[in-house]
């Protein structure tokens, strides 16, 4: 897998950026690279990088998170320490960007430095099972809006096709055509495919550059949503 010094994950909100950023940072650290992850999400009030603080700390990944993340302060402030990610060139950096163009405005602060250093991967996280990016054309529209707001061009696509706990390998494989078309429309390569670890097991050898992800159990997961993902009727 092609790895740059700085990796940014951006895309439509709810496309899975935070889960991917956390798992990719853990993956980099496992490769022996000194890694830091920054939560630059100025949009989302809940479910943030900070929720994985313990796992990241245990693995030795440094977490840079806004002072007010997960609190009652509805203040979209960027953490000052995030500057180190662009300044300390001995670090491998992962940046978790907020959803859509509104989230990408945060990028403007760092874009000039990243462009100058020119050692970054700006990955567009795509999930065709999200209603406002059901077609490659809609995804391309979001892509262009993010680039315009963030001042940084995308360099690659991440296939994160999923339906949460209902995801099967077939769901991921069925997205291949969508990703190929998005790749053709944007001129960008498909860089990697991400999937929850049980799904990833079933995908072994069937897709290239696969990143298995460990997803956090949530306190509100229902009895039928626990354990390996499988299609089950929902509550109610």
């Amino acid at each position: 897998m092609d790895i740059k010094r700085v990796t940014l994950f951006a895309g439509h909100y709810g496309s899975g950026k935070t889960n991917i950023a956390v798992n990719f940072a853990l993956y980099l650290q496992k490769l022996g690279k000194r890694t830091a992850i920054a939560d630059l999400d100025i949009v989302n009030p809940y479910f943030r990088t900070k929720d994985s603080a313990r796992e990241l700390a245990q693995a030795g990944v440094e977490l840079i998170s806004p002072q007010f993340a997960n609190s009652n302060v509805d203040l979209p402030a960027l953490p000052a320490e995030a500057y180190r990610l662009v300044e300390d060139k001995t670090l491998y950096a992962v940046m978790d960007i907020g959803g859509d163009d509104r989230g990408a405005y945060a990028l403007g602060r760092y874009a000039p430095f990243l462009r100058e250093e020119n050692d970054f991967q700006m990955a567009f996280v795509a999930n065709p099972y999200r209603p406002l990016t059901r077609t490659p054309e809609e995804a391309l529209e979001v892509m262009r809006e993010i680039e315009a707001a963030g001042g940084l061009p995308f360099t690659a696509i991440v296939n994160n096709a999923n339906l949460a706990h209902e995801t099967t390998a077939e769901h991921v494989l069925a997205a291949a055509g969508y990703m190929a078309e998005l790749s053709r429309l944007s001129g960008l390569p498909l860089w990697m495919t991400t999937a929850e670890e049980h799904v990833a097991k079933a995908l072994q050898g069937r897709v290239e550059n696969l990143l298995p992800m460990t997803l956090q159990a949530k306190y509100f997961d229902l009895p039928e949503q626990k354990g390996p993902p499988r299609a089950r009727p929902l509550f109610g």
Partner: protein
Amino acid sequence: MAERVLMKGNEAIAEAAIRSGCRHYFGYPITPQTEVAAYMAKRMPKIDGVFLQAESEIASINMVYGAAAAGMRVMTSSSSPGISLMGEGLSYIAGSDVPAFVVNVQRGGPGLGGIQPSQSDYFQATRGGGHGDYHMIVLAPASVQEMASLTVKGFNLADKYSMIAMILADGTIGQMMEPISFEDVEIEHYDKPWALTGTQCQRRHNIVNSLYLQPDVLEKKNFERYEKYRAVEENEALHESYMMDDAEVCVVAFGIASRVAKNAVVAARAEGIKAGLIRPITLWPFPKKALSEAADQVKSFLSVELSMGQMVEDIQLATGCRRPVSLCNRVGGMIPSPDQVLASIRKAAKGEN
């Protein structure tokens, strides 16, 4: 299988509203419900609908009033402090007997409170919210799928009874993501002969108003309205029963609290405690009959809430205080853990409070 999509609770409300025929959205952004407005802003222009960000919640609810008076399927959405600002408009809509659909994705309070999830607008929603004698139909989704299905239902019920239907969700249900489908969107059509659609010089003009000059006429209106409410109470109460067949402890919880409670009930059963769950799906009308029948069978009730026990009184009223009702709660944006609920179930099973 029907087409599945992965959605946030807030998005599911917006998409379900559009599929229910809603083409008029008026609102003002507030965390944690902003995705409803964001989704509408993106979709409405593409389907010839109206998305309008008003200058305040007071303006939005009065725009809703206007569109409702014209017979449109119309909605607004907000979170706790914003709903308080809408109080006057909600009362005017209720006093005019026009249908409207309102969403409250609750956050911690009182006052400005916080942005984390809460259920502490229970009194406000189930008792009306604004001034005067009135009710709203209050629907409490516990999953993203239900955010969609209860939105469809809410629009239908609002039109059926010509009154406000409110989704009372919480920040977590609004923000969380689950796969859902929209297979069962059925729009019920009800005549709106009172609507301000233009007379075309063919009929007398309609008047939509909540002002009455004669007190006896206003009194009559109130009595009539409560006849309608009686019909709603009789026909529209909804709940889900879980493991209640042989239950001795009945946990009562709605929305996000019911999901935690459901896990705690499973854990209690594993310990040999006969616990069950009644989940009110409508908070007004409250599922009194189900609770009253449960009181014939169980030894005690446990209300699990993200509020200071606001639902306890409804359980006591529904059961005529025949069984003790204890409370397990967290507030201010905190959520009870399954272990905390389990500990409360153990106590309730032993007859402790």
